[in-house]
């Protein structure tokens, strides 16, 4: 009729506030843990996706800081260095090259963006090669450029959302103060989950003309022949004057090493969160054991074995941790996007896709960890309770 589980459960309801506070503490640490694990696995897969979707394996840029180059490659940035487009011929000479495409990155301040204006990323591309380099891009509306030198743009999915443009609309760009140009939106891409979503593509020649950068490019994307030895090819490219060769493998390594420090910090936070939750649980349960000393003594006089009392207290701990763990994990899943935004603000570079990935397995794993923590935290209070002797309860009434 009544079980040890019922007693445990009802006991937790006795001091509701304390129970709720403890559960909240556990939930918070479960949330932190789950989000951090989700980040740990999500970040790398998002990065891989970004890199695979670039359409090329090697990028040639002007000589500069390698970190800057890495960032430039994935996101674009200010203080860009320019190369002369003639260098394309030298790159094309190599037999390892399957295809190349020149690019000119231009960050433009747009006063109409956001509350106080913002930067828009324009990427000048070669209309003849871009379509085949980035063959995986699909259009939501329209198509690539009709004129290789036209005042036309193709907008990434998010860029179009942000500017609220449809194919056929116009987009105003201000390359120099006081000189605005209207561009026609000829196509809008489907969502890719990569940086392309936020990019505004424009014919290379048009961008060069608008910004007085004739003959200048910021990078060349190189698609390598399947059987080519990339490392050896990189060496050869370095023979070219004043270039920087960035291979995607290298980029990935650079970024991951940048993020590694952040990750260590983040994992220490997770460990601290677990410790705090653990101390909270031990404190709560131990207090409730002390408060119930006499009750426990009476229960033992009724025939409860030390093991029964141990189980009773342990179950209480488990309930706390299970409830807290599930709530915390559910919160982590529900708020994954918010966490995503938060982490993206904290890190120097983050891939475009969702970098916090929490799935059923992770949910189960973190819940298991939290429950494991509960099992550990419950050990001492449960042991303590199991050793209460009925006599102590009776002595309590003597005084």
């Amino acid at each position: 009729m009544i079980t040890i589980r019922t007693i445990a459960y009802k006991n937790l309801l006795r001091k509701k506030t304390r129970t709720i506070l403890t559960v909240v503490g556990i939930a918070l640490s479960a949330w932190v843990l789950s989000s951090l694990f989700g980040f740990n696995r999500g970040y790398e897969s998002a990065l891989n996706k970004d890199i695979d979707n670039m359409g090329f394996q090697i990028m040639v840029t002007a000589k500069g800081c390698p970190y800057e180059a890495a960032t430039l490659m994935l996101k674009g940035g200010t203080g860009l260095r320019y190369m002369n487009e003639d260098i394309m011929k030298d790159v094309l000479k190599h037999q390892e090259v399957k295809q190349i495409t020149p690019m000119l990155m231009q960050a433009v301040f747009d006063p109409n963006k956001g509350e106080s204006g913002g930067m828009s990323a324009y990427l000048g591309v070669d209309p003849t090669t871009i379509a085949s380099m980035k063959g995986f891009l699909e259009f939501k509306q329209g198509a690539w450029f009709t004129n290789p030198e036209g005042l036309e743009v193709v907008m990434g999915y998010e860029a179009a959302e942000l500017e609220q443009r449809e194919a056929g609309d116009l987009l105003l760009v201000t390359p120099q103060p006081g000189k605005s140009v209207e561009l026609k939106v000829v196509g809008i891409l489907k969502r890719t989950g990569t940086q392309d979503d936020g990019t505004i593509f424009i014919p290379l020649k048009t961008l060069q003309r608008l910004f007085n950068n004739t003959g200048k490019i910021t990078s060349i994307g190189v698609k390598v022949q399947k059987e080519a030895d990339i490392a050896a090819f990189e060496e050869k490219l370095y023979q070219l004057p004043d270039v920087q060769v960035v291979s995607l493998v290298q980029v990935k390594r650079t970024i991951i090493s940048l993020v590694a420090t952040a990750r260590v910090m983040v994992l220490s936070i997770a460990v601290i969160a677990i410790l705090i939750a653990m101390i909270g649980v031990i404190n709560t349960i131990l207090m409730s054991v002390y408060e119930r000393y006499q009750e426990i003594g009476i229960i033992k006089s009724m025939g409860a074995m030390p093991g029964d009392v141990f189980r009773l207290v342990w179950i209480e701990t488990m309930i706390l941790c299970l409830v807290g763990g599930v709530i915390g994990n559910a919160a982590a899943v529900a708020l994954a996007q918010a966490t995503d935004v938060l982490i993206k603000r904290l890190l120097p570079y983050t891939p475009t896709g969702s970098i916090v990935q929490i799935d059923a397995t992770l949910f189960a794993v973190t819940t298991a960890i939290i429950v494991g923590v509960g099992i550990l935290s419950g050990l001492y209070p449960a042991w303590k309770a199991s050793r209460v002797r009925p006599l102590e309860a009776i002595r309590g009434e003597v005084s």
Partner: protein
Amino acid sequence: MTTNGIAIDAKNLVKIYDRGSERIAAVNDISLQIRTGEYVSFVGPSGSGKTTLINLLGCLDNPSAGSLAIAGTEIFGEGRTLSERMLTTIRRERYGYIFQNFYLIPTLTVLENVTLPFAFYRKENARDDIDRLLSHLGLEGRTGHLPGQLSGGEMQRVAIARALVNRPEILLADEPTGNLDSARGAEVGAVLKRLNEEEGITVITVTHNPALAATAGRTIEIRDGRIAERAVTPPA
């Protein structure tokens, strides 16, 4: 030694407490027999050792010396002490305990409190007529209430019901009326008396309440850890 009719057989029981440098013999060489179905009440001044003695008789504590046999089975003797587990096994088979402070679990209903022992142990011949037990004790209609909603007398009757669900052979009650006014105390006394007479349960109480002591078949006075020269009522 024969078992016939002897529920508890204590020989030369001693319990010594160390209090700093002092050693107090709270129970000092007590020998007594309690027959099955007897109702015995211990009386005596405060600090005389009544609680200490009844705890020894109830297997709640190990004696420092002496021997104790329950229904012919020696539990303590020759300096042998038992583990908590062993004591628990004996206690749940044979004893029911009632205390001055009831010790009901405030979060459980009357019915849950009464059946609480079943969460840990259910004797083969345990009561399954809980409703009848409760109405016998005047607790019908109270089963869903929480202890906080009961009077002191009702709480003590709930505690008595709880002590009875596993059909103990011996019911131990240390100051069962200590927290009750005289009317409620008399009710509890009547219940103990009826249990003793109708169900044949051996009842052992400790009390300062003369009215309660008077309901017992035999009253034994304890002084300074010993049985007083003159027992108030001779063995029946």
